[in-house]
């Protein structure tokens, strides 16, 4: 097992190291009040235990705890904002839409990947543990380097390929044909699946479930002609056959995409040369 301090530098780390990390709030700059008074009527008190990392402050990761008063129906993202805006402005996280469609804020929440904007305070109170998603280098706190993830995505040629002359108007596609690839159009590129996959953690090479989901989206689109190229790419040693069907990805997907099923369909398409 690697030394916990190495986490930020070693991207492919399994979840078992959790217990070993150092506890306590060591950071000085700008530390604001860490707790306020008791919760007002209708509010609950939530303690957030957040895994921090900032190479400019100290070389290793550490834990910080904050207590905030929130409405039970607030999102965990709101609680993180409360921390960031009123307790400790140094906390770094990504977010945009705040309702589960932009894919910015996948995090490891109580040991499972989820979007902070889709977890409600009432479902995690009184205490929640928040960490960055695993398997990608941490830049700061909850912000990881997404570039390797997007490189995998780009490798599967995630755009419609069809050089035939299009008709004057739209190409026709029946609702049934549209339905065939519907599930995998829903991917928001949050990386929750890929960073929950033990094969991805253990192996810098596996392209990961999200890339396969996005290949599936085009392979099964009646308008696309690039399936062969994509399947060749995924048949390669970094591709689908590394998958060991652990279903972590399907469980992690905040859009409810049947990720493992999509991977299986792509495997089958490669093996039986059938679309």
């Amino acid at each position, binding site marked *: 097992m690697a030394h916990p301090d190495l986490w930020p530098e070693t991207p492919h780390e399994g979840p078992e190291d959790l217990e070993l990390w150092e506890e306590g709030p060591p950071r000085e700059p700008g530390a604001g009040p860490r707790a306020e008074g008791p919760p007002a009527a209708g509010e609950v008190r939530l303690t957030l235990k957040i895994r921090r990392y900032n190479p400019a402050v100290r070389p290793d990761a550490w834990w910080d705890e904050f207590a905030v008063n929130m409405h039970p129906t607030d999102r965990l993202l709101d609680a993180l904002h409360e921390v960031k805006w009123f307790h*400790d*402005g140094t906390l770094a996280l990504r977010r945009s839409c705040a*309702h589960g469609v932009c894919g910015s804020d996948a995090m490891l929440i109580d040991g499972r990947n989820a979007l902070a904007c889709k977890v409600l305070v009432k479902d995690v109170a009184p205490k929640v543990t928040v960490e960055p998603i695993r398997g990608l280098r941490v830049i700061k706190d909850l912000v990881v380097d997404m570039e390797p993830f997007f490189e995998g995505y780009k490798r599967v040629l995630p755009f419609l390929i069809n050089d035939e002359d299009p008709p004057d108007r739209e190409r026709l596609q029946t609702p049934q044909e549209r339905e065939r690839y519907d599930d995998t159009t829903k991917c928001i590129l949050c990386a929750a699946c890929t960073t929950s996959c033990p094969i991805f953690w253990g192996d810098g090479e596996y392209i990961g479930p999200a890339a396969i989901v996005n290949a599936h989206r085009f392979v099964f689109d009646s308008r696309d002609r690039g399936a062969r190229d994509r399947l060749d790419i995924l048949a390669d040693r970094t591709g689908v056959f590394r998958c060991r069907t652990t279903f972590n990805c399907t469980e992690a997907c905040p859009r409810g995409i049947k990720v493992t099923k999509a991977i299986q369909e792509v495997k089958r398409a490669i093996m039986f040369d059938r679309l």
Partner: protein
Amino acid sequence: MGGGAAGLRAAIAAAEASDGLDIALVSKVYPMRSHTVSAEGGAGAALGPDDSLDLHAFDTIRGSDYLADQHAVEAFVAEGPGEIVQTERWGCPWSREPDGRLAVRAFGGMSVNRTAFAADKTGFHLLHTLFQTSLKYERIVRLDEFFVTSLLLEDGRCVGVAAIDMRDSEVRCITAKAVILCTGGIGRVFSFTTNAAINTGDGMALAYRAGVPLKDMEFVQYHPTGLPGTGILMTEASQGEGGYLVNNEGRRFLEDYIPSKMELGPRDILSRAIIEEIEKGHAFEGPYGHYVHLDIRHLGEKTIDKRLPFVRELATKFVGIDPVHEPIPVRPVVHYMMGGIDTDEVGRTRLPGLYAAGEAACVSINGANRLGSNSLTECLVFGRRVGRLAAQDALVAAAPSENPVVRLAEAEQERLVASYLEKETGTERVAAVRRDLQAAMERGAGVFRTEESLKQAVEEVGELRERYADLSLDDRERAFNTELVAALELGNMLDVAETIVRSGLDRRESRGSHTRRDYPDRDDDRFLAHSLAFASAEGPRIEYGDVTITRWPPEERKY
């Protein structure tokens, strides 16, 4: 600049226009995180057999309360269908009719079904399709998570941007022969909004400070149906599919306001109706204020799951109400900025080298009130127009001189370090000033406005500026300093807010979304004109510009 629908469409158009160009797509978030992703309902274009360009134009112009520039609207409706078809060719998974054609649905203020949709995640699918298509062009170099802090100006021309790379907070200087601002809207200037956290009006503020006027900024659209508390939008497609708005007497109260259109009336009228119902005591009351009901139960579970799955998901998740069995609580919420950077109908601003499109720009096809589903199409049509134009201009423009530009970037870095990262004085938190700004705007420039409320807001924004000067950051480090970004955004929000309240104060009439209790009527003699807010040492200076009328002379806006 900007990786939403408008920015991506512009980048693709520029890439297609010439092999000889280097195109940088600068965005403060990964493009697919842009706010376009949240658009649910659809994209309007005259695609159907019972539709016509003139009808779409007329609906748009009437919806705008005659403040739209009609030549721009004509171009918009003419190019809309082609753009929707283009995105289909690029793979956008539009919903289909049984025979395989693109399906269209009803939308507020549109007199026929003309809104193409991809379930109720149209913006999401459109954005991903454009992003995916942009990956095909190696000429488009993405600078993701770069935050633009200022425009580089040289001899009265825009020659690039200064941006901080968020990974290390270093200012990078990106020189360019043409800069296109596609930075989206301003919802976050208000406290209750459907807009993403990143919608802080940066591009508008940058252009404004560079001397380009902001046009029609008093026109802020309230969407009638947001979830109380979070402001999450219940798409107007809910009404397009047949949903009802009901008050606490169980009555479809719109029959008192707009009986001919009922739930399919334009947003400004619906939002005012809901506020009036609240004032009459006909609303429900909850922990997040007053609300009315959006009832879609009669559509049945099957239709809801097929056409409005996201509405069901959002309502269930965020207010714990399953719309198959219970009505959804809704209230008006800040949604869209009709105004923006003053451009002509191809996206050119008054500053050579600077262009704009999308929600950040004001062409204007939206006038005093945008019709739902027009803005995605606007992003496509004007994104393409401006991308091509900027490409053509860039091919013949002289290269900016590297030296002064590098010096400008260095000066920008010094400014950031001195004003934020190494600033020693100050006590104010970004979030405290921002919260008070949002509250002031909500009070002063809401659905209904008065001389008094707007004057008060002008004053409060002025005070907030002083507090802004007293800002102090917790985070003084360089790595992914989102507090620094938030502080810069807040500076932009203050500039934009000031133009909204000043323009609103001077427009002493009611038109579209701008409703003055003290001037309840439209006044074409004085105000059939675009407001133009110019930056000056004393704050915004308001001038007026002509509205282009081609074939639809202003008449009373009747439904």
